[in-house]
């Protein structure tokens, strides 16, 4: 993360010097700039705090530790990369996380997009209750959602596992996708669709050729959000998992006996993929605007 830090600092300082020379006599300006500098340093301090455990995670994937407790630095090694698959149940857990994430994202994106279009485009009876339920899904504690789902599954005799985790992940992320898509639909220029219809396009053709491409950025960011929420989730997953283990569940179970460096490496790899996707998404969406 040191990449963006180093170029930002000199540019900022240079800009400060330039304006200082431009306004030599103004008494209030320098004080204001001191405040800005303080806030700038503060912002980076908080960012450092946010990244501190991640830097530790990355570094300790290269730690030449002997025991299972990977806490003190013992020297640099690459050996854990070669022994990444040493714990078969850990590999399974990571694959489960990715599979559940993809499946949940697919369902969530379809359901959420339909909800978002309905709420953004139409005025209909029942809009209020729909908003209310979505609001409840966003603001209910995850713990309560997980506990109530488990209560129901237990009494119906439903075996918890892979399918119930997917079900729960769709439940807590669908409202986020709907709200993201709705914001895009509301901001859309309706006259373009009218123009398409005036030119003889059917409702179906208008949707796929005009409406859908216009809301696509909202759908894509909704899908990314859904995947991020799913792969990170712990609480609902723990309640609905049964015998199925995901990556966060495996780590939580390993805390008491010691977390092996393989976890750090897998975390680093997932982080790297996430960073690449996020940067690509930001750059392409900026180009579109």
């Amino acid at each position, binding site marked *: 993360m040191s990449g963006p830090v180093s170029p930002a600092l000199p540019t900022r300082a240079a800009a400060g010097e330039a304006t200082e020379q431009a306004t030599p006599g103004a008494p209030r300006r320098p004080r204001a700039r001191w405040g800005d500098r303080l806030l700038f340093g503060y912002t980076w301090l908080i960012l450092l705090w946010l990244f501190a455990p991640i830097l530790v995670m990355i570094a300790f994937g290269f730690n030449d530790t002997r025991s299972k407790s990977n806490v003190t630095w013992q020297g640099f090694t690459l050996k854990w990369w070669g022994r990444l698959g040493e714990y078969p149940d850990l590999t399974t857990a990571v694959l489960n996380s990715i599979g559940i994430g993809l499946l949940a994202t697919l369902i969530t994106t379809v359901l959420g997009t339909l909800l978002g279009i309905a709420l953004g485009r*139409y005025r*209909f009876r029942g809009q209020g209750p729909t908003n209310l339920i979505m609001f409840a899904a966003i*603001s209910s504690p995850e713990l309560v959602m997980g*506990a109530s789902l488990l*209560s129901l599954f237990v009494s119906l005799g439903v075996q918890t596992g892979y399918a119930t985790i997917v079900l729960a992940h769709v*439940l807590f992320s669908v409202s986020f996708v709907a709200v993201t898509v709705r914001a895009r639909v509301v901001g859309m220029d309706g006259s373009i669709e009218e123009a398409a219809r005036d030119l003889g396009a059917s409702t179906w053709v208008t949707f796929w050729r005009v409406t859908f491409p216009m809301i696509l950025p909202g759908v894509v960011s909704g899908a990314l959000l859904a995947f991020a929420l799913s792969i990170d989730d712990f609480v609902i997953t723990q309640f609905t998992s049964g015998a199925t283990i995901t990556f966060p569940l495996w780590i939580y179970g390993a805390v008491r006996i010691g977390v092996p460096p393989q976890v750090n490496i897998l975390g680093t790899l997932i982080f790297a993929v996430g960073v690449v996707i996020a940067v690509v998404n930001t750059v392409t969406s900026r180009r579109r605007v």
Partner: protein
Amino acid sequence: MRRKIVPYLLILPGGLWLLIFLVVPLVYMASVSTMTGDVVNGFLQTFHFANYGQALAAYKTQFLRSVGYGLAGTILTIVLAYPMAYWIAFKGGARKSTYLLLVLLPFFVSFVLRTVSWKFLLADDGILLGPLKDLGVLPQDFHILATTVAVIGGLTYNYLPFMVLPIYVALERVDPRVVEASQDLYATRAQSFAKIVFPLSLPGVFAGVLMTFVPMTSDYVNASILGGPANTMIGNIIQTEYLVNNDYPAGAALSFTLMAVMLIGIFVYAKALGTENVLEAAAR
């Protein structure tokens, strides 16, 4: 006529999903909370409302502690997030979206893994405290793990971005011309902040509180990884009742009480602000 049913067809799948897997389980859990029995012989509905009294009497401490931790964490996130959101919104310039991306990037590491990393960082002989103890700056028996500070710190850390983003969104919407106008009218910088910028940013703070207070209060991961026996929160109790003791009625009574307290608070809160605004801010 055909156009009239279109919106209903669109909301049907998602709406049913929410209805069946959110509303039905919640109603069912309310019913479980007054059942009696055990996991071997099964549970029976006996309208045993004493479950609530027993559960609350037994775990009042943890309930109050959770609300206290949630409040402390929420206040800390506001104090820590506000200056940062302010700087990004007003001084971020062309790099605004880069800074926002940096705030969000930690989310790509599972929050369990980040919390475990904090446990390593703060370990008694770990990379932070170990050297300080060797240098004699800290006494040998100094520790952070298993204290209230560690748990509230962990909560604050994990939920900080949920406070930065809504405050940023609110500040970003402040029209700079309004601030200029106040200064043309001889307001000092402090005055125009206190009278113009801060009031306009309050909806963001409110949305942030909504995004952080509820999950912090019901969290059990931070208390379980960073805390000790004296830091047990209500989430830990509910989790144990459900997943270890299989005492579903007690767990349901506690969850239902927790949810009722949170939802009543939220709805009062949202009513004052308008649901749509809060949802909109929540999505960003």
